[in-house]
């Protein structure tokens, strides 16, 4: 990096200028530079980490183990091929539900299997996939002391059924998923933005939304400044 070109960029005091695309390449040089930099002064105290990066094993990771138990069996018996991919990665059970059966599965989990506490509803955006969103429900059962994850894969624009009528807590959690990803939940009683301003356009946590991007029209109208950057 030559200092002359980098300096003026850095001197802008506000914002997170230059933290976007450049950052993604940064870790690789760190790996190369670490041993070289440490070489001139080997007695430097390093309590933090082993001295050199671990050698990378070329073998692909083994597939996560299947989730076995009475719950997968019961769900498979009840819903057939609507439920699939029962895995227990790192000991955490999760499974996938077809979009049209999600509401029934949640109802069954709550009423029959005792999952009476909905921990979290959120989404993950996979823009390259045909079904661009994973909607994730984390459920917990006080009786069984068990936590499971339920995934519903939906296409952009598809509306998964809201579970507010089963768990009241889903109200704000679904509103947040809508606010951040634009996933609309069918049957939600009050689907408004929750963290962003009501008139904001765009969904910030989608992968195509840049980290410096913002709704400039809203900013200009409401804050009276050209741009937040």
């Amino acid at each position: 990096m030559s200092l002359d070109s980098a300096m003026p960029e850095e001197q802008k005091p506000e914002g997170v200028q230059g933290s976007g695309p450049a950052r993604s390449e940064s870790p690789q040089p760190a790996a190369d530079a670490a041993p070289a930099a440490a070489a001139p002064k080997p007695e430097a105290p390093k309590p933090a980490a082993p001295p050199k990066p671990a050698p990378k094993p070329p073998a692909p990771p083994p597939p996560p183990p299947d989730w076995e138990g009475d719950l997968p069996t019961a769900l498979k018996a009840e819903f057939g091929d609507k439920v699939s991919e029962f895995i227990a990665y790192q000991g955490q059970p999760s499974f996938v539900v077809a979009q049209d059966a999600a509401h029934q599965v949640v109802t069954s989990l709550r009423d029959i299997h005792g999952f009476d506490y909905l921990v979290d509803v959120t989404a993950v955006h996979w823009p390259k996939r045909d079904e661009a969103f994973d909607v994730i429900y984390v459920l917990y059962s006080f009786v069984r002391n068990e936590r499971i994850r339920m995934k519903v894969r939906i296409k952009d624009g598809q509306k998964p059924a809201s579970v507010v009528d089963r768990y009241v807590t889903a109200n704000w959690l679904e509103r947040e998923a809508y606010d951040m990803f634009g996933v609309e939940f069918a049957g939600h009683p009050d689907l408004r933005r929750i963290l962003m301003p009501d008139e904001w356009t765009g969904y910030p946590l989608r992968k195509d939304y840049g980290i410096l991007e913002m709704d400039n029209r809203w900013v200009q109208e409401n804050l009276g400044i050209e741009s937040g950057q």
Partner: protein
Amino acid sequence: MAETYLDSTELVLNMGPQHPSTHGVLRVIVKLDGEKVLGTDCVIGYLHRGVEKIAENRTYTQFAPYVDRMDYVASVSNGLGYCLAVEKLLGVEATPRAQVVRVILTELNRIASHLLWLGTHALDIGAITPLFYCMREREYVLNILEKYCGARLTTHAFRIGGLQYETYEGFEQECLAFCDMFLPKADEYEELLTGNRIWVERMRGVGILSAADCKAYGVTGPMIRAAGEKWDLRKAQPYSGYQNYDFDIPTGEFGDNFDRYLVRMEEMRQSVRIVRQAVAALPAGPIMAKVPKVIKPPVGEVYVSIEAPKGELGYYIVSDGSTQPYRVRVRPPSFVNLQALDKMAKGCLVADLVAIIGTTDIVLGEVDR
């Protein structure tokens, strides 16, 4: 839903965002009939900083300081949850010594968080003296944190795989000295408040949330314990060696404001118990497990939650095998607990609304992230 009495009509009142008793920038739109609350609507997001978006653009190590800024009065707990989640993704476990030090600091921070809650909440109700006393005792905890990791509030105390700093000389003695000093002080607060008629009248029977409601609303932490549900993640799904300590889960009976206050007071005493046991059991050994310098977890996803002072704090992290998390979702206890405000506040008086917001113990940095 509004039922009108005599000639009274509904009045819509804005409480906040600049209201001293909302503990931050919470705006509650209150629908009133006289002084009776008919309904509330929370407007949040004034402190939204997009922590989850920032996470997607930082490496795993770099994101760790940001989690301190969510629940800033209990930043050590936030850091612990995040480190545990990434460690789970990596498949490593912190060394025994690191785990015990983590427990000590987290419990001290829980005391600090509850002390801040107690002081500010008593101030909301009208008792100004506890605030000064609580701040005085909280200072001891913050001094220990400052000596240990160099910061008082946004600590960044833990690293993925263990600890960055070895404990300083005199750490154990200072922790024990704090424990000895704190218990009589806690009795002193109770002397000021628990028997006080004004305090009891303001708190007893106000803001009731039953255990069934708590589950339906996803309310966790001291609030669900105040409703009688004996549930604490430290016992239910122990992490970081909590199964080795002997402590009780305090529970309430009615789930009202007063029970929440008592539960939190008792929780501080239990934290003292844990700290004492942990200091006594502090093993020697390395403080950092073997983690690669550049953290690159394998493809996968985990949800790890801990018992933060406010409730269940969860981190859902999706890794795509690169050095940056693909998605980090924080399950904030304050955000979910705040949702039950409408249920608790319906039918009470405006002045009680302040007390209910107080005992919900929200931190707006965590609600809005």
